[in-house]
């Protein structure tokens, strides 16, 4: 009886078209110098059997995967670099190539603490918007909260060249 119920439960989960959820891997504490740009890798995973549109899907009607960060004042967000999508065709449209992410993918963001930022730890928050499909159905767009911590440190002391010790100086 219990085995039958468990089997029915599993079957219903598949046939009802459960919307997949992406996962976001925790980011180790990022150390960023003031007035410098620091690159931060954000790692995501699409569950097996699903795909999401890349940041540059091939149709104006498809919803691109997009990260929106909301950073503290005085920490500037630089360029967000998205991976190139994989050109793939699916059983629902074998003649058409779509630009998608599946499995693991990484989005890189540049954070740039201004000179005026007080050294310390800062929490960065954002959301990743994506829209997933499997081989036969698509699911409404979802958002995934994204956060990581940045430790802002003072810039290292300016290097004072000592001509006597420099290997590049030849008298």
């Amino acid at each position, binding site marked *: *009886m*219990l085995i039958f*119920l468990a089997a*029915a*439960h599993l079957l*219903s*989960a598949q*046939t*009802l*078209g*459960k*919307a997949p959820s992406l996962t976001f891997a925790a980011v180790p504490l990022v150390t960023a110098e003031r007035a410098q740009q620091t690159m931060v890798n954000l790692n995501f995973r699409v569950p097996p059997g699903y795909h999401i549109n890349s940041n540059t899907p091939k149709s104006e*009607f*498809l*919803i691109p995967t997009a990260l929106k960060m909301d950073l503290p004042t005085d920490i500037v967000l630089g360029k967000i670099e998205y991976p190139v999508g994989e050109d793939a065709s*699916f*059983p*629902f*449209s074998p003649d*058409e190539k*779509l630009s998608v992410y599946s499995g693991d993918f990484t989005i890189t963001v540049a954070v740039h603490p201004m000179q005026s930022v007080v050294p310390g730890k800062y929490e960065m928050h954002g959301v990743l918007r994506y*829209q997933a*499909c*499997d081989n*036969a*159905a*698509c*699911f*409404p*767009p979802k958002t995934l909260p994204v956060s990581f911590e940045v430790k802002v440190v003072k810039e290292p002391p300016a290097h004072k060249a000592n001509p006597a010790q420099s290997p590049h100086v030849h008298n």
Partner: protein
Amino acid sequence: MAFVVALMLYVGYHQARRQGGALAAPRLTQSSLAPDFSLESLDGKTMRLSDFRGKAVLLNFWATWCGPCKVEMPWFVDLQNQYGSQGLQIVGVAMDDASKEDIGKFAKDMGVNYPILIGKESVGDQYGGVPALPESFVITRDGKIMDKIIGLRGKADIEDAIKKALNTRPATSQASIEERSSVAR
């Protein structure tokens, strides 16, 4: 025994959550009366499902961002051409964040020859939450749900379901008509 009952309740709870994200979503089964609704069409008219009383209806929930939905649309155009004179009415409900203009452009590009209505979450909820697209309901001439199709299936499967719905009889009793008159807005 108590454990089995508790397990069944657990299974039922999670099934209900999956279907619509809310326990309030109705459980539509074969031969349930298709919930009536009122929605605006692309040309600005207000249409109700009950306007198609007496016809076999294929109610298709779709969106412009849904690739599999795009594959079905030419099939629906063909089926509407082929079976429209026998009493088939395909009705599209766009469950989309896109503007009415964009939905209209998409439908025009696809050569759609059946009404497209601008969907609302409340109508999706009436039909179990519509968790994945495409999702279609084949409705008999007397307004009952005959088949529910989630995801992309073959055109032949859809055509078979339509033929069965066309072979049904329209409702004749006043009671049946009145049953469909609770309209969602």
